[in-house]
């Protein structure tokens, strides 16, 4: 994004908007909209899975549609909860070091949990967990 009316000094001082807030705002809404059907589905899925044995759950996740929707639910939920906790951290933690550590922990926990969940579901769906 160009800023034709800004002087080089104002640019060097970093004054004004960063210029990418709208994209971030829209991305948050896109994730939220996607989560509406995914969460309704995952409640239905949890009701089906709760009375099942481990073998039953493995067969259930072996169906491609179930595995796909489960992975999508994890990925979009974790994306959404990363963005949400990020805002909470930015609101309440003012000390730069504490805030940076919390933001980093939030990112690492989300990426790790998402990676573990997706690998686990793929392992089951591809028949390697029997």
């Amino acid at each position, binding site marked *: 994004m160009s800023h034709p009316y800004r002087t080089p000094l104002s640019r060097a001082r970093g004054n004004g908007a960063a210029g990418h807030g709208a994209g971030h705002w829209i991305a948050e809404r896109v994730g939220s909209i996607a989560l*509406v059907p995914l969460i309704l589905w995952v409640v239905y899925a949890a009701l089906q899975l*709760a009375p099942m044995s*481990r073998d039953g759950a493995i067969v259930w996740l072996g169906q491609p549609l179930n595995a796909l929707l*489960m992975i999508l639910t*994890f990925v979009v939920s974790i994306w959404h909860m990363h963005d949400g906790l990020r805002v*909470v951290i930015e609101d309440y933690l003012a000390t730069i070091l504490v805030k940076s550590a919390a933001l980093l922990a939030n990112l690492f926990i989300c990426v790790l949990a998402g990676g573990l969940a997706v690998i*686990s579901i793929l*392992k*089951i769906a591809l028949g390697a967990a029997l």
Partner: protein
Amino acid sequence: MTQASSGGRERPLSPHLQVWRWHVTMLTSILNRVTGVGLYGATLLAAAWAVTLAAGPQAYSLYMGLLGSIPGKAALFLVTVSLFYHLGNGVRHLVWDAGRGLDIKSANASSAAVIAFGLVAAVAVWIVAGLMGAL
């Protein structure tokens, strides 16, 4: 932000909770954050479900035993309430983002609606779970 220079007049701060009358839209806003943070933990528990399911029968039965215990079920019920509340309030936010329902009367009415939805939907899901023999 730079500090106000010393000796200048005290600048007003944002409203303090002590002088702020509680109202229902404030409650729904706070609940949205609280349930969101709670659901962060719940999503980590769901990831642990997938990991233990893939890990093997021992890990899975241990984990399902934890979730099926009385404290486990109580936590899962709170997760269900939080999930439906956060879902309902999230849709409410999307409606607001579209520029609708922002007047005080509508906002108060939708506050009551999303709180009721969270509770009723969670109880309904647990009744269905009981009927399906999932409890």
